[in-house]
């Protein structure tokens, strides 16, 4: 069963387009939205194992310039998905 993670990104000023472009290239990231509030971008990722999520961070996300910090929420259970 796939694991869904919701990743919140805080970015340096003016880095939004560049980071979004890089994130779009990660196949496990299924959705990216630019948002208002404490964070600048929210991305949803789907992986088969948590190790895969770890690899994405180590090999890709952590290497991108422009990201100040991230907060990840791993979905334990989808409680509602309206049709």
């Amino acid at each position, binding site marked *: 069963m796939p694991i869904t993670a919701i990743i919140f990104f805080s970015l340096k000023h003016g880095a939004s387009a560049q980071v979004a472009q890089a994130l779009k290239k990660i196949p496990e990231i299924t*959705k990216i*939205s630019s948002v208002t509030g404490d964070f600048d971008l*929210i991305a949803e990722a789907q992986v088969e194992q948590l190790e895969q999520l770890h690899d994405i961070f180590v090999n890709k996300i952590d290497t991108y310039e422009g990201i100040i910090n991230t907060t990840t929420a791993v979905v334990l259970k989808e409680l*509602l998905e309206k049709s």
Partner: protein
Amino acid sequence: MQQQKTWMIFLANVLWALLPIAVVELFQTYSVFLIFLLRFFFGGAFILVTGIILTLFYKRNHPEINLKILGKYLRSQNPDYRHLHQFGYFAIVGSIGFTIHISFFFFSIKFLGILVTVIGFPISLILVSIFSKETMDMFKGLYLGVLIIAIILIGAGRIQLAEANLQDPTGWLALLLFTVSLTVLMNQMAKDPLQRWETQLVIQTHGVYKILRMLTKIGFIFLIAAAFIFPLTGILLLLPADSLFQQEAVKFYAQLGSLGTLFLTWQGLFLILGATVTCYLLLFAAEAYWPRSALPFDTWSSLLSIVEPAGSVIFGVLIVNEQFPIDYLFIVVFLLSLSILLRYVHETSNKVIAYVALSLVPQREKQVFQDLYHVKGIQSMASVVGDYDLILFIQSSSIVAFNKLVRRKLESHPDVEKVKVFLVEEVLK
């Protein structure tokens, strides 16, 4: 991806627009009720069998999907319908939403013609729009105004070249019953939310369960609708002998044996396979994999439903040769197309999409979930581990509605400690 699914909705509506063209010739020979029975009995059976075959097929890759699970859905209660048993809900939708709606739609086509009958569609959309309690902005006002002008032009254009049957009140009564029952159907069809155990199944099966559930639901609704034609015609038989409804009911029982012959006509096959089974398969496939960030499926589906009357007007004039001033035809089609654009602008300009992250009082997740389950606007809810406990994905019709939801349902909830709102500015992927 969304574009492809939007085209699927469009294609389903074009096929529905062709439906009157197929049936109008049959009305000269067969009772409207027999044509109804043909469509819904065979259509329902085909859809149900398709659902069963797909269930057995998918069972190989998704063992959690099986006929037992569909049986569990059928035995469950509908939480949006005062916990009525699903079959009770199907019976209401089947009888009012389909038996009355479609049989009197056919009746109206037979006695008033295609062009006058399609007036019922925009009238229903206007009624649904008025009763929806959505914010009335300039675009919604223009949308309703354009639909009203299109209705007036269709009526005026037909009356200019009036034929004798427009004088008969039976056709107008049929049109009224069709319009009212269509409005009821539009309001009630989606009142069947996924239950908690079903949500898990949808995720585990990557949406496959959603398609199978919809096939099962519509298959049974169609079969129930087909069965309801007997009590309906039974009541109509009690009417005076000179009534057109009574005559059609008599004709129905006299022609029941011809159902097999009717099935084998090209019109019969198109009615069942082209304008029923294919349309619903297209819609179900689009809905099951509809992207969450776009306008909801229901909104797009309602938006493009105007394609059906617009197509019927064009096909009615060009193929069936119904008398209608050609300059009016251009204006009506233009106005109906314009109404799609106006409605789209109305829906997108005010729409608010947001992620909302909640921190909860420990051990209270279940209670919060139960309280938020039926809140309109909350599209999805996920229990997460990390800085937050619950993450909601919300779509509201306006910023006012969104703020009300956050203040009244989330911030004021005794088990919610912290609410963080992230309004979506743009969906980038």
